[in-house]
């Protein structure tokens, strides 16, 4: 009798799963029809890499090379140069996006929040060489994710027009010799 009953219940569970699967026909579909419907990637999505500017409109990058060192696939290359006012800047800045794995290590390594990853992922191209982005392609006109951050206003580094100790939360350097009795 138990055997017969289990036959009935087993048959019932099969019918139940048939019904459950069928009922999925009346639910919302999960597919996003991509090229027509655009994907709304979250703000912290790791896509195309950009170089940002500080609130004053100057390049944030100080050509410290930390991003190139942090990059696990070695797709970043740059050359340091120095402007007349003493600021460092990259003479060229090159990212090979056919190598880049979008890990975000460069963004984590950057001391000046210059290099940032953006939610744009549509980088496909017909030529490999056009995936090598130069500074003119990377540099954007805004501050990116950190609108108020300005490295030279915070760091103690002296440049022309900003002597040592005139940054935010900084006191002018003390002439230690004046403290002598």
């Amino acid at each position, binding site marked *: 009798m138990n055997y017969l009953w289990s*036959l009935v219940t087993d048959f019932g569970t*099969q019918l139940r*799963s*048939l019904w*459950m*699967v*069928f009922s*999925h*026909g009346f*639910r*919302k*579909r*999960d*597919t996003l*029809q991509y090229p027509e419907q655009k994907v709304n990637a979250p703000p912290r999505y790791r896509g195309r890499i950009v170089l940002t500017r500080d609130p004053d409109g100057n390049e944030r990058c100080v050509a410290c090379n930390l991003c190139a060192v942090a990059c696990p696939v070695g797709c970043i290359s740059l050359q340091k140069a120095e402007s007349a006012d003493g600021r460092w800047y990259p003479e060229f800045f090159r990212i090979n996006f056919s190598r880049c794995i979008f890990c975000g290590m460069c963004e984590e390594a950057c001391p000046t929040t210059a290099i940032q990853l953006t939610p744009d992922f549509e980088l496909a191209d017909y030529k490999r060489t056009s995936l090598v982005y130069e500074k003119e392609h990377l540099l954007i006109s805004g501050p990116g994710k950190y609108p108020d951050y300005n490295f030279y206003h915070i760091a103690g580094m002296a440049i022309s027009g900003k002597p040592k100790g005139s940054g935010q939360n900084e006191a002018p350097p003390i002439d230690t010799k004046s403290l002598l009795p």
Partner: protein
Amino acid sequence: MSPELTTILVTVAQGIVILLVAVLVAAYLSWVERRLLAWWQDRYGPNRVGPFGTMQLVADMLKMFFKEDWIPPFADKLTFILAPIVSMSAFMLAFAIIPITPNWFVADLNIGILYFFMLAGLAVYGVLFAGWSSVSKYALLGSLRSTAQSVSYEVFMGLSIMGVVAQAGSFNMIEIVNAQQNIWFIIPQFFGFITFFASGVAVTHRSPFDLPESEAELGAGYHTEYSGMKWGMFFVGEYVGILLVSGLLVTLFLGGWHGPLLPPFVWFMLKISFFIMLFILLRAALPRPRYDQLMSVGWKICLPLTLINLLLTGAIILWQQGGGA
């Protein structure tokens, strides 16, 4: 033109039309199945080629025709080529007995349903040849499974519709349909319907009885070594099988073309579409059983059920006739 010649020509034309439509519909089922599966899995399925993806079949056919049709050097060439032909043509030939409307059928055979069993038996050879000639262990295992499955399920497949035959008093499909004018056989022959449906799924190697080609464990089962259009013929053969079994279920248990208001052709199409949908829903919903479970369901549940069903049907028929002679 003499009236005999006209009759012959009309019959031949009907046969060709039914054959072509059957093959076309079977090929189109590949797209229908993918769309339906996607629909039940909250996806869209192929919807890019043509309106709603209806031209997907053309794209697939083009791809398949241009694929390399490779025969393994170690294969038994003659049987290797023969296998997909047998597999596809057996079910296609069986389509001849299904009456679509009172006037549209290929052959009005007086042995009707027995002809289908003969061809279902022959269809096993397609799979058997494929597995044997491939000289590959997965293909052989797949065809072994398929043979054992088909043989054990055909035993009670025949028995499951003997109740219908006994009630209709004929093997002829048209007479079976006409016998259902008042009540469809699905009601008095409910257990016959259930078992015939199960064995129909098993004979066409459809999921959940697709152990001969279970892709998780056997590569692609008996057609592992096939490519190009030969593989395509196995594929179309499977869909022709679905169409055939759905058609048989409609004619034997759901009253064929009978139905109120709508014309016979529409009723037949509605019923057959329902069963095709059910076949695909089974694939979408049910997991594949273990091989011993498959066998024990066949021999220990379905076979006794059909025998009891046949016994009761016979008893009731005798009782209605006034207690035997």
